């Protein structure tokens, strides 16, 4: 089944809130090999001008992908997740995600296009705090590999 082009332009209700705490930030930083103390030492983070420990730049994907689920899991969207490959990812950070933030993600389907028998789906998730602070704009391209049907 092809990816449904009728979803282009659709914006989903905000997803979350997702709580950010120091343990999650420390675990993500360790997993990507970042030893920067701004991830683990509140004093170092405050000395650098942040309210608390800050997330590594790509940790935003955790909340973006959580916000994607309502779309990719919708049978009407026509996305066979077993055929999905991550094609591109981009982040624009408005401020670092920080321990204590409650994050909400608002997903918009920006594009669905066909190329070489595959479908390329571009989604954009705007992450913000429950208080309305803009955190990050996360743009993702997933490739849904075409079948032989």
């Amino acid at each position: 089944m092809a990816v449904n082009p009728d979803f282009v332009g659709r914006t989903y209700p905000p997803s979350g809130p997702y709580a950010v705490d120091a343990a999650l930030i420390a675990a993500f930083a360790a997993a990507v090999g970042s030893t920067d103390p701004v991830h683990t030492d509140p004093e170092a983070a405050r000395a650098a001008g942040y309210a608390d420990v800050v997330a590594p730049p790509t940790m935003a994907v955790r909340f973006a992908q959580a916000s994607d689920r309502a779309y990719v899991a919708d049978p009407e969207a026509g996305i066979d997740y077993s055929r999905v490959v991550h094609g591109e990812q981009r982040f624009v950070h408005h401020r670092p995600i920080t321990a204590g933030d409650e994050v909400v993600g608002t997903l918009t389907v920006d594009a669905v296009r066909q190329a070489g028998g595959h479908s390329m789906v571009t989604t954009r998730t705007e992450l913000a705090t429950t208080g309305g602070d803009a955190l990050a704009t996360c743009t993702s391209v997933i490739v849904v590999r075409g079948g032989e049907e």
Partner: protein
Amino acid sequence: MRSLASVAVGDTLGPVTLPVTRDTLVAYANASGDQNPIHQDEDFARSVGLPDVIAHGMWTMGAAGTVVAEWAGDAGRVVEYGTRFTKPVVVPVGGGEVVVEGTVKAVDAETGRVTVDVTATSEGQKVLGRCVAVVRLD
């Protein structure tokens, strides 16, 4: 933190060799929420036509971003970061590695924005394409 005045177009970062093991991928899966078994289960990965367990593309992006953040001296200063995922990083049972390098492509003295082109290779193959980070320095 690195000072804006000390940075010039053509400056290079690395190369830095980053090891990656199956344990790394389990830790990344738990921290990111991406539990796709192609990143943990060799039999499953092979059953869907992959050569072996592969790293999450987002692990590779994140680990390469760490090299840029450490060069900048403050991970909170990475204001933009984007990439294409061109090849998977294969992680055999004994582990694999990714080599990350960067080159400063632009320095904006007014805004403090420094643009870094990043290359990441594994077993000689480019695994990230058009990988660009922007850091904001003072």
